[in-house]
């Protein structure tokens, strides 16, 4: 079964933590370095989230993302190193091009922040089943309809893509050329749109009706088959994480 989920099976302690705690953690890794605005805080959060990624056993999945982002981040180093408005102290020069210390430090801070965000978001996405994530949010008050859209899209889009594959195969078996030059592909694409759009419109109507007869718009208060990932220390962790956030705000204003 193809789904768009990033979830990686696993039984690390991180997998057992409930989705809401993880979401709070993501928010904190984004917010605290911004609030504190120091290199140390950015560095600290990178270390923390990287450690957690390693504990969760998903580092192999995260590295390619880090690698890909690094290509983009090189431009940050160049631009800030050359043009950061506080640039004063030359650090090194390549020929006549001078890189400044202030800009490079600033770029470093941005990079540390982005890497720590990547790590913590990855931590959430790779160790949480999408269905658990959505269900946790619905339990916290997200509209069940919006929740349904998120959770069904992950499965239905791959299914629709396989419908398109079926149509392509059908057209190809009738002798249509679906590969080759760009203009040929475009020409091949047009007769595909009709059947795909019509069938998905009919499907959508039928799907909507099928949901209706299963009381999708019921006025009863929804219950949940899965009690959810009940994590013993969820409350303690959430309170601690939020306290840390508050402390960082206080510290920032005291300074």
């Amino acid at each position: 079964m193809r789904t768009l989920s990033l979830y990686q099976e696993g039984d690390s302690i991180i997998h057992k933590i409930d989705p809401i705690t993880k979401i709070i953690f993501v928010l904190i890794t984004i917010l605290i370095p911004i609030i504190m605005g120091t290199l140390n805080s950015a560095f600290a959060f990178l270390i923390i989230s990287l450690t957690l990624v390693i504990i969760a056993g998903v580092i192999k999945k995260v590295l390619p993302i880090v690698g890909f982002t690094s290509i983009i981040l090189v431009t940050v180093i160049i631009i800030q190193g050359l043009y950061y408005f506080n640039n004063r102290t030359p650090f090194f020069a390549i020929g006549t091009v001078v890189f400044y210390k202030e800009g490079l430090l600033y770029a470093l801070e941005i990079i540390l922040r982005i890497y720590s965000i990547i790590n913590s978001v990855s931590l959430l996405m790779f160790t949480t089943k999408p269905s658990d994530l959505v269900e946790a949010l619905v339990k916290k008050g997200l509209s069940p309809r919006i929740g349904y859209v998120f959770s069904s899209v992950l499965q239905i889009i791959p299914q629709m893509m396989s419908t398109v594959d079926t149509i392509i195969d059908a057209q190809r078996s009738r002798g249509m050329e679906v590969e080759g030059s760009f203009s040929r592909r475009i020409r091949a694409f047009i007769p595909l749109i009709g059947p795909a759009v019509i069938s998905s419109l009919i499907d959508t109507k039928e799907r909507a009706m099928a949901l209706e007869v299963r009381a999708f718009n019921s006025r009863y208060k929804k219950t949940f088959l899965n009690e959810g990932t009940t994590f013993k220390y969820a409350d303690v962790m959430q309170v601690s994480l939020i306290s840390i956030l508050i402390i960082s705000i206080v510290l920032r204003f005291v300074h």
Partner: protein
Amino acid sequence: MFFMKIITVEHLKYKYPLSDKLALDDISFEIEQGEFIGIIGQNGAGKSTLCQALVGLVPNFYKGSYGGTVLVNGINVSKTEVSEVASHVGLVFQNPFNQITGSKLTVYEEVAFGLENLGLPVEEMKRRIDNVLNLLGLYEFRDKNPFDLSGGQMQRLAIAGIIAMQPEVIVLDEPTSQLDPQGSEEVFRVVQRLSEQGMTIVMAEHKMEKIAAYSDRVMLLHDGKLIDFDIPKKVFSREDIEEYGVITPVYTRICKNLDIKDENGFYPITIDEAHERLEKIL
């Protein structure tokens, strides 16, 4: 034996929005609890529209102009929300794939979808899910992804999702038209099992041999009108039946050509009846 009316339809008329033709034209009938009703008629006769009217999707999903009343278990369906009607009468559609919610990762959870919406306690949900999965022969697939099932299994899952809500009536709109022969057979078998358990069943279907074999009574629709509603033998023995675009069961056609009738003047409709008649003659 005391029969209770479970469905009462009176002077039902319906026109789809933007259409100037009545899709249902002054239809009245009654169905008793535990009956198996077949709906037949050619394409466009109004079978699907009638099925949807029994659960209130007509008119509440489409809007359009509506007249008359549909009562199911005493509930006026058109004046009740579809989600409320759902715990009295369920509807199974043609395409099994479109009935899978897509928001659940296992067969077990998929069945729970409707029950969660009804706000049932977890214990009750689990009891019902185990029950219907066993009844429909799906228990062994409970941890599978619904999209990984075969067509016949998926359609049985759709039926399971409906049955779990414990409606008094289940309506099936050509439940096997998109299935291969094996899948169709699986679905017919579970429908028959539900019928044996006393469930009231209404099924629109093009496979006349199945209608002949299972139905207590058959409803013949044409152009939105109810032409006949009687025991299958009588309906299939109508001399004008082919004018309504209905191809009668193959056994009926053979006997008709051979002019073999039973003592009441009806043609046999199943293989067993045909066999019995032929033996008497030969």
